[in-house]
């Protein structure tokens, strides 16, 4: 009974957002064009610098970049919809009312995330289509199931970070914009969104290796394309046992995804409870 009710509430939040989105077709078209022009700007650069002498390498690099951009679409969407979504509701004065309704605390952020996942998948499909048309590169999907699992872990991690931001934003209000933007900038520069990790300078790669999302992006796109991970290569020694780098990266990403998801959830729920007690949920 409880599960059924929670699922219904979750669907209501998702449907509510989808309804709002479909009411503004011009806004939707503008978002698609936004994606197209960013893609064209970066594609122009890639086409200037790409070498037609190595078609195989070009195809793999194009796929790495395209799937990296796809991961960015999902991550920035989650930050915007869940991280800033809560603060948007607070600014408009409806957050307190929503949280006063008899729904579980986790339903609202998860509903927003589910909505964003649907929208992001549409945009990801368009990105990949653009890659085929503009880069003239084939789509490489060698391991769809593995890629899907990698995407699920990446989603968990992004959702965890978004809830963390939402928790901070409800309390910090406008100051949190800087944190959200900083998160996005760090992601774009260090998490290999627009380039393969293997081509990054060593000093940058060291920073990339300290950011959990880098591993999630790496495992998602390299599994999908069917190449070895770029961040953990060869064999890795753990407690005297030697395991393949790919397996080590899967374990690492799996553990980190669960940990960040739990951390984000705890921070958000504690902030909501604190906000209810001190009465700042409705203040902006």
């Amino acid at each position, binding site marked *: 009974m409880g599960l059924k009710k929670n699922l219904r509430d979750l669907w209501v939040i998702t449907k509510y957002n989808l309804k709002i989105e479909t009411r503004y077709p011009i*806004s939707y078209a503008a978002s698609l*064009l*936004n994606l197209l022009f960013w893609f064209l700007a970066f594609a122009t650069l*890639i086409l200037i610098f790409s070498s037609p002498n190595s078609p195989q390498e070009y195809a793999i690099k194009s796929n790495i970049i395209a799937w990296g951009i796809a991961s960015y679409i999902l991550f920035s969407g989650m930050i915007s919809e869940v991280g800033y979504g809560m603060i948007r509701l607070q*600014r408009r004065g409806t957050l307190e009312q929503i949280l006063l309704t008899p729904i579980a605390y986790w339903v609202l952020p998860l509903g927003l995330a589910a909505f964003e996942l649907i929208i992001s998948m549409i945009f990801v499909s368009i990105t990949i289509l653009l890659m085929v048309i503009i880069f003239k590169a084939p789509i490489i999907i060698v391991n769809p199931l593995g890629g899907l699992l990698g995407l699920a872990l990446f989603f968990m991690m992004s959702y965890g970070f978004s809830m963390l931001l939402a928790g901070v934003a409800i309390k910090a209000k406008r100051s949190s914009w800087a944190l959200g*933007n900083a998160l996005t*900038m760090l992601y774009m520069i260090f998490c290999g969104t*627009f380039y393969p990790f293997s081509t990054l300078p060593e000093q940058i790669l060291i920073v990339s290796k300290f950011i959990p999302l880098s591993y999630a992006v790496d495992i998602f796109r390299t599994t999908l394309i069917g190449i070895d991970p770029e961040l953990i290569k060869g064999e890795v020694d753990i407690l005297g046992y030697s395991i393949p780098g790919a397996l080590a990266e899967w374990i690492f990403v799996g553990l980190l995804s669960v940990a960040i998801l739990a951390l984000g959830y705890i921070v958000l729920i504690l902030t909501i409870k604190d906000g209810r007690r001190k009465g700042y949920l409705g203040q902006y």
Partner: protein
Amino acid sequence: MKAVFKARYKIYVRYPGWALLNIVFPLFLTVIPVFLAFGVTGSMETTNLIFSRYAKTEDFVFYVLLGSTVWSLSSMIMWDFGMWLYEEMEIGTLEQIFLAPVHTIELLLGSILYTLVISLINSIGGVLIASALLGYLHIVLSPRFLLALMIILLGFIPLFGMSLFFGAIVLRIKEPWAFFNFLTALLVYISGVFYPLAVLPPSVRVIAILFPAAIQIADARAIMLDVEYVFSPLIDTLLLISYALVWPLFGLIMFEKIKYEARKRGSIGAY
């Protein structure tokens, strides 16, 4: 005018994180295309060599840094007035502002003064920090920089007119984010932030030169790096002057028209 400036400035200094991000933004916008090019070519030497075939300069990093800085500056000026109106509308204070006994031009000038001071401090600070980090301080600290700054400042006049027009759009459509994002992406693509206008298809280039920032970016690069102007120094300056005459007038007419309609319908306070 002073009151608008002071109010906005006070809010700005309350959030030091914003200033920090604005300062690092051009550096951030430089790093991504540089890494992307590096990722495709495999080395900085190859990147510079290939780039020189298109832009007549082997300094790809400074080329992009200059483009990113001018772009961030122009973009902030173009959007700031509209975004300020949007914020006031969202928190329900826009109607009160319009009820105050001040003309639109006074509001705009106060807002312009704020945008100009903040964005120039941020951009010059940003370009100095980035140049110091990347080893271009000797290029930036030269008389050429002042000449480039003059061209950039001239380009601000039409951009202020555009900001009025976008303010009018905010009053009309209420939720401007999709439009803002779309236009930002379009302008990044057509104004040659990361590459010379010459690599764009001819039809896109025609659209690009209608936009003042494309000329600002190309001419600032031409002055600092001895690369090509869009047409020539004289024609580019005349183009910017003509835009400086047309855009403010057009922006003001559109803004007053839409504000008048919104006042008649009683929709200024509605969000």
